[in-house]
């Protein structure tokens, strides 16, 4: 790999279970006050293996600092609220969690969310074409599709925020996808 393009992002949000007794509070009060209430079950993913887990920790840290709520920082060090990324949605829907950290795309997966006010953390989507890719023509076609009108439409429909292409690595775009990366 000698370049990559960041083409979209999805903000980190708090997904919650609408039957949770904290649901009303989450909609009316700042999220950082609600999640530190006693009895609130929040789920996050393992920061050691999942980038979303890192973002969630960052969100907790930022809010802890900004609003002087040290208990939020403690939340980020407990391990009993760490779940595998793949089971977080199920746990939330089954009611075992009141809320969890999700990407904004989760809203498209029928999860109710509130924004993490005061933070601007997001998962970033990047793409590249491998050097000496065995099917380079197909890869070029896919990148052009994804960054083209049709691809952007699909991304938007699924809750991903398209961003202006930002190429890192090479100074010039690789042959075939120059137009799409502009």
């Amino acid at each position, binding site marked *: 790999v000698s370049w990559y393009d960041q083409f979209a992002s999805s903000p980190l949000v708090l997904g919650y279970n609408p039957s949770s007794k904290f649901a009303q509070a989450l909609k009316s009060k700042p999220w950082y006050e609600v999640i530190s209430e006693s009895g609130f079950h929040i789920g996050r993913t393992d920061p050691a293996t999942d980038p979303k887990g890192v973002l969630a920790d960052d969100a907790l840290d930022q809010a802890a600092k900004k609003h002087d709520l040290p208990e939020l920082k403690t939340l980020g060090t407990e391990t009993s609220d760490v*779940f*595998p990324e793949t089971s977080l949605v199920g746990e939330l829907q*089954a009611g075992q969690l009141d809320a969890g950290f999700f990407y904004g795309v989760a809203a498209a997966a029928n999860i109710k969310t509130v924004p993490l006010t005061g933070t601007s953390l997001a998962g970033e989507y990047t793409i590249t074409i491998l050097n000496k890719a065995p099917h380079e023509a197909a890869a070029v076609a896919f990148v052009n599709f994804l960054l083209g009108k049709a691809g952007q439409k699909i991304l938007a429909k699924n809750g991903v925020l398209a961003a202006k292409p930002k190429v890192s690595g090479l100074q010039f775009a690789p042959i075939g996808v120059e137009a799409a990366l502009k």
Partner: protein
Amino acid sequence: VRQGFIKSPLPWLGGLIVLYLAIPVIGFVVRLVGAQNRGFADLGLFPSLFVSLESASISLALITLLGVPLAYLLARSAGRVASFVGLVVMLPLALPPLMSGILLIYLVGPYTYLGRLFDGRLTMSLTGVVLAQTFCAAPFLIVAARSAFGTVDPAMLDVASTLGHSEFSRFRRVALPIAGPGIRAGMLLAWLRAFGEYGAVIVLAYHPFSLPVYTYNQFSGAGLPTTVAPTALALGVAVVVVVLSRLPLRGISTSSVVPPEPVRHRPSPRHVPPRTHP
């Protein structure tokens, strides 16, 4: 005879499966001896082992208390209801454990009727682990105990009945001693099944970590090497239980059930006619 042994395909086929079943264990033991970073130092290891030992033992107690009487009744009755009940209690055995967990979460999840009744504590707790294990492991004991009770000669129970023993007394003093070894085998199987339950447990109670959930978490997070420790512990537990299952039951064997002893106090089913029956 010797030539027949070589020519027959049976020993070869049987031998192949023995190899397949034994080699992974032997290979693991070799790896265990030589490996670095085996995960024995991980702080979560022993707590998860204790969660599994504790929950499997509680599950077994529940399963035995409720399952043995059921197995006795099922073995003693032949009606349509009995065969339907027999089928229903087999279902968890036929179901993939993960699906059993899904069934259970609809029953004991925090927002279900039962879940609210217990303030959501039926999941994500030791209780949750026990509920999942009990559901999946119970059929193992019920099947074993039912067939063990099936070997009890009905005539013996009838005799006990003529001696004035109540249904419960016949169960306790005649059927239970005879079915003892079979029930014990079922109990060990059920305990092992509960101890190793993963699918249903992970749905109901990802936390607190039980040994299988912990092991999968290590596997997916920290990598393969650190799963050596929990695997070794599970292997050790399995060996202990299998050895236990081979020990003879004290005082209970088919020959000791009907001892030719003289009557001392009141007639007991151990003393069958013609000697003690008037």
